[in-house]
């Protein structure tokens, strides 16, 4: 049985995928852990693996006028080192795992692994990321919130790979990110809050908020954000309790070996309160 394919190009990879059922493997920092076997035995892959970490076409990064295009195979380290990557992204990526993992783990892998606690996901939601998927002779593009459907679940077809993440141009002047883990480094997220906004004078021009690890997928609500758009500081102050209640309905964490339901929910809402009541308010003139 073929254990692995090592395609020479993306097209070659798609060709292979059109004819074989495979498991694409980029950095391997999730898959090699999930499928690990007894020491000395190879990890358990029931299908052939398709190595894609060497494909340079998947490691490109292009800054265009209206968007930033990050190829899925960019490692976290390469994103930290690239000048075109927004500093907000670097803040989030720098808190992922540790150097050894960042040198191999890819943004594409983080997305396709679709963990509710995926570190890049809340950020990508807040930045309205769109994902470009390709298969042989075909491609499609969809917003990230349509791509992720549940814990570990995506709409990726068996013969498709994630090629690119497209970040539309944005202009935030306020950014707040807080990941709560079990320790200061190399820690899975118990919960996270991402808040980006544009505050002009005394008004909120734009605001995006997303919560990680507190629901089956990332929590973001454009409806709630719309309620805040255009509001002044005074109006925001009055709205905060209602906004918190609205998010409280959407935040549905689980209890597991890492954290309790109550902690995840309470702290998420406290961070939200801090973002609105302290960070945004401080930006208002």
């Amino acid at each position, binding site marked *: 049985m073929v254990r692995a394919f090592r395609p020479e190009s993306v097209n070659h990879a798609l060709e292979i995928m059109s004819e074989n059922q495979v498991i694409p493997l980029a950095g391997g920092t999730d898959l090699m852990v999930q499928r690990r076997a007894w020491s000395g035995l190879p990890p358990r892959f029931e299908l052939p693996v398709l*190595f894609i*970490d060497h494909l340079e076409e998947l490691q490109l990064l292009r800054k265009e006028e209206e968007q930033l295009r990050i190829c899925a195979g960019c490692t976290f*380290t390469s994103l930290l080192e690239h000048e075109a990557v927004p500093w907000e992204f670097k803040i989030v990526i720098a808190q992922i795992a540790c150097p*050894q*993992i960042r*040198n*191999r783990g890819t943004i594409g892998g983080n997305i396709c692994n679709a963990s509710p606690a995926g570190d890049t996901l809340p950020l990508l939601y807040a930045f309205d990321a769109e994902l470009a998927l390709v298969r042989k002779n075909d491609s499609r593009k969809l917003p990230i919130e349509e791509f992720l459907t549940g814990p570990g679940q995506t709409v990726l077809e068996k013969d498709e790979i994630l090629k690119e993440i497209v970040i539309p141009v944005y202009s935030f002047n306020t950014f707040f990110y807080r990941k709560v883990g079990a320790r*200061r480094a190399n820690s899975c997220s118990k919960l996270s809050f991402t808040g980006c906004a544009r505050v002009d004078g005394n008004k909120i021009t734009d605001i995006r908020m997303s919560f990680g690890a507190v629901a089956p997928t990332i929590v973001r609500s454009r409806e709630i954000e719309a309620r805040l758009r255009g509001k002044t500081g005074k109006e925001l102050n009055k709205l905060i309790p209602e906004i918190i209640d609205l998010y409280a309905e959407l935040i549905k964490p689980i209890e597991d070996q890492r954290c309790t339901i109550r902690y995840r929910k309470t702290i998420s809402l406290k961070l939200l309160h801090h973002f609105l009541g302290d960070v945004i308010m401080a930006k208002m003139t």
Partner: protein
Amino acid sequence: MRINFFLNDKEVQVETDPLRRLLDVLREDFELTGVKEGCGEGECGACTVVLDGKIVNSCLIPVGTVEGSQVTTIEGYRTTERYRVLQDAFAEAGAVQCGFCTPGFVMAADAMLRKTPMPNEDEIKEAISGNLCRCTGYNAIVEGIKIASRKGRGLW
């Protein structure tokens, strides 16, 4: 699968299951037992090797992906002058107790010093944040790396 790569500066070839962990290929096929298994899940860093200039956990690397790459283990590194400086510095600082984690820390330290020859304490701690030590409490290791950076000026 036949995989050709550079191991400790020597060109080598293996014919093996490409999904075998690089850690196992190094320890079993090449008898490079300086690369240790502490957890098998990329958390402890005891299996740290340098792959194309960057530190990685060899327990998470399928050997098929190292085709054409440069792999350096502690066995390759310990013949260098930079290693000698680190070894002395570690001993001077008391950075070695049971020693199981030490080769992994050495590889991580060298990778960082190559990028930042005169690191501050925060940079050092960040660079070794993927290596666990249960014996020393880390301060001595950080101190050892500081000493190495001072005494090894010009080497990195």
